[in-house]
């Protein structure tokens, strides 16, 4: 079974890249269908292997071996309306493909130890703007992707208290494209493409405490991870006469993925009805600058440092689940998150705003071993801003919908 599981993981790794622009900043919160159905919350409520992400401490209370593979195709569209020209421009971003895969194993029935392996995509985005859009010299396309691989160890101290921690290896990539304001003989604008692979390390730790039979508490800490690009490739498509000014070559950069502290609560009203609430505190202030350090500098190509000045934010997420009849569970939830992007710093790469969202979900268990979860997420947000660096001034309206599905096999 474990062999089969590893094979599934391998397939996922080669097939998908996490590419979406959801969650605050470029954070993505699609790590478990059941949690997604309940407003993306579940830190204090063990439901399935997705708790390896939501709270490794909760995993201590699992009583199963399971494999859980989920996928949430994501469709996001942004409209930018320029305030001076009143022209509208849209993104043509490709479907986002965040996925998660969890394997959960107990060594023997009586053991207090649980082992898990989680693979998921908590950060990433691909924003592709329409051709010739007004902000083309700021950005035409940005693809960020990251895959976290997290082996996890959980331990149940007693019937009330569980602890867990996982080590995270993060593999990612970045690809940034924009036009340069110099024109080829045919009038086409020059362009730059920066691409590279990024790596980072971190951890995810959590405590789960059952205060009473009905009331649960969870506290987790996911560490900051610096995704460093040490050997990126900068490629310039410029007129022949300017090739010496824009030499192709290596560059360095890094992107911090922020730490997240979460306090979770759960309450079982009845055997059939449960409610959860998560409060996230996200350390976005780590993202203060986006810098590119080119190995070959020229008078036209100097290293860049763009202020981002993100701020730490809170997000509130909650939802309920109700067992309608045997095997069928319905879920409903929603949340609100503050934007980490301050006034003057909204960019075409993350046209972020305070956001309200709603979610819906359902599960059906086919017997004792196999079950299917599905969820649906919807949000819309609007941000008006004048960027201090580029002077792009206008409003971004984003709508996003994300239906997700996961398959679980347990034994």
């Amino acid at each position, binding site marked *: 079974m474990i062999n089969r599981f590893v094979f599934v993981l391998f397939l996922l790794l080669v097939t998908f890249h996490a590419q979406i622009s959801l969650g605050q900043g470029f954070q993505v919160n699609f790590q478990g269908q059941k949690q997604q159905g309940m407003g993306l919350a579940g830190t204090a409520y063990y439901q399935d292997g997705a708790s390896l992400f939501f709270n490794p401490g909760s995993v201590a209370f699992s009583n199963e071996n399971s494999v859980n593979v989920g996928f949430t195709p994501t*469709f*996001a*569209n*942004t*409209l930018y*309306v*320029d305030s*001076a*020209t*009143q*022209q*509208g421009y*849209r993104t043509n971003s490709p479907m986002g493909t965040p996925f998660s895969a969890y394997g959960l194993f107990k060594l023997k029935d009586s053991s207090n130890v649980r082992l898990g392996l989680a693979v998921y995509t908590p950060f990433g985005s691909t924003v592709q703007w329409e051709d*010739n859009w*007004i*902000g*083309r*010299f*700021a*950005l035409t396309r940005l693809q960020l992707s990251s895959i976290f691989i997290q082996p996890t160890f959980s331990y149940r101290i007693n019937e009330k208290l569980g602890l867990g921690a996982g080590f995270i290896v993060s593999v990612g990539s970045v690809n940034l494209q*924009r036009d340069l*304001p*110099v*024109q*080829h*003989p045919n*009038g086409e604008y020059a362009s730059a493409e920066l691409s590279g692979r990024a790596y980072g390390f971190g951890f995810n730790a959590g405590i789960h405490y059952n205060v009473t039979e009905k009331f649960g508490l969870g506290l987790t800490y996911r560490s900051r991870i610096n995704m460093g690009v040490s050997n990126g490739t900068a490629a310039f498509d*410029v*007129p*022949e*006469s*300017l090739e010496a000014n824009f030499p192709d070559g290596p560059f360095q950069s890094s992107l911090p993925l922020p730490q997240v502290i979460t306090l979770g609560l759960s309450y079982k009203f009845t055997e059939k009805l449960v409610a959860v609430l998560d409060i996230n505190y996200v350390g976005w202030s780590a993202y203060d600058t986006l810098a590119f350090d080119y190995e070959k500098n020229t008078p036209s190509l100097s290293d860049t440092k763009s202020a981002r000045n993100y701020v730490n934010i809170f997000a509130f997420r909650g939802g309920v689940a109700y067992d309608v009849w045997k095997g069928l569970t319905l879920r409903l939830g929603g949340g609100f998150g503050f934007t980490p992007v301050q006034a003057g710093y909204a960019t075409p790469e993350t046209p972020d705003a305070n956001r309200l969202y709603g979610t819906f979900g359902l599960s059906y268990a086919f017997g004792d071993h196999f079950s299917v979860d599905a969820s*649906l997420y*919807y949000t*819309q947000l609007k941000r008006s801003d004048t960027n201090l*660096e*580029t*002077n*792009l001034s206008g409003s971004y*309206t*984003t*709508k*996003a*919908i994300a*239906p997700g599905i996961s398959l679980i096999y347990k034994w």
Partner: protein
Amino acid sequence: MKKSILTYILGTCVVTLFSACKPEFKQEENSPGSIDATSFVMIGGGSVSGFMDDALYFEGQKNALAQLIAQQLELVGGKEIHQPYVSQGSNGLSLEGNARFKLNYRTDCKDISALSPVRAAASGDLSILNDVLYNGQKPFGNFGVPDLRLLQVNEAGYGTQNGFFGRIMSAASASVLSDALAANPTFFALYLGVEDVLSYAKSGGKNNSELPSLSEFQTAYEEIVNAFIGLGCKGAISLIPDVTQMPYFTTIPYNGLTLDAENAQTLNNIYNPLDFYFEVGSNPFMIEDGNANQFGIRQILEGEKLLLSLPLDSVKCNQMGTLFPIRNEFVLTLEEIAFIQTRIQGYNSIITTIANQHNLALVRADAFYDKLQSGFMYNGVSMSSTFVSGGAYSLDGIYFNAKGNALLANEFLKAINIRYNSTIPALNAGYFNATIFP
């Protein structure tokens, strides 16, 4: 049965949600405010005509200041204006009979090849002066005429002395103003006075008597404005920018004379008796100045300007600026610069008064040029008044390229919107060409 209904409902929901996933774009209604934009006429010099890269040519005219303003006025009820186009393939014509500039490689006297403005042809397209373009049924809206000075606007028979007007005039006896009024304008714009100060500055400050006195300026300007107001027009009039900020006057550094020890010594031997000193590295050029001393020569001072008309090959290879001081026609002295700036201020206070008297929109072109001088970001593009790389000026270093004209047109639209409560949207200047690189 139950299952298929559920599938149907779910399916419908998903389809609805997916279509709801694209934000709706509602184009704002644009209001003309209190102007009647139906028939627009603009009078001015090179910028208004579409003169750029030191020539009047088709692509320049397509992006003429008058054309770009008219284009946006069309969004609030304006009609498309007629323009006196030069034929599309033409290399254009400068005031001196040259073809337009293009950016290309040029090999200098030292056999060094570098990017430089180069004429697109050995001679300009003089044939355009034979054009007879006037059509009473389709009067022009663009009365931009390269080199048009203020006092010439109301000069009968001006077409016989300026062929650029000759090709569009209604009759040999016509004036620019009479033809503009005959176009039945409902709204007008003026960008005048620029060519007057430019012609003085481009000559290296030679004939300051050719500049209109303040009272001449006032009389002529009022005459023009009154003529339009007599027709019931509303309008926008622009202040004059400080032309000495243009790259034509700022590109060649005053201290661009780079010397090695040997050359510095040679020059010191010659000039030390006159109290001029040279050192290794950068030095100020030698210029002619009749008032300087008995020889009428001195070193150029910081802040003084060398004009782009300076023959650089003579500087590089034939001791111009060292043994042979640079002639006055290539230099603006501090005194001349102060004179130009004071005169521009004088003209501008007259224009401001006239705008206030007649409740016209006052365009702050001067402030825009100042802003360009200090540099600014426009939708991610850094703009400045630096030659070529600054993005706004054409290759003549005086007139804007299409992108620069679009930005200046936006200043006109802004002033109109403020004065007449209209909501004419700005042009996306990023859409317009700057310099094309080989």
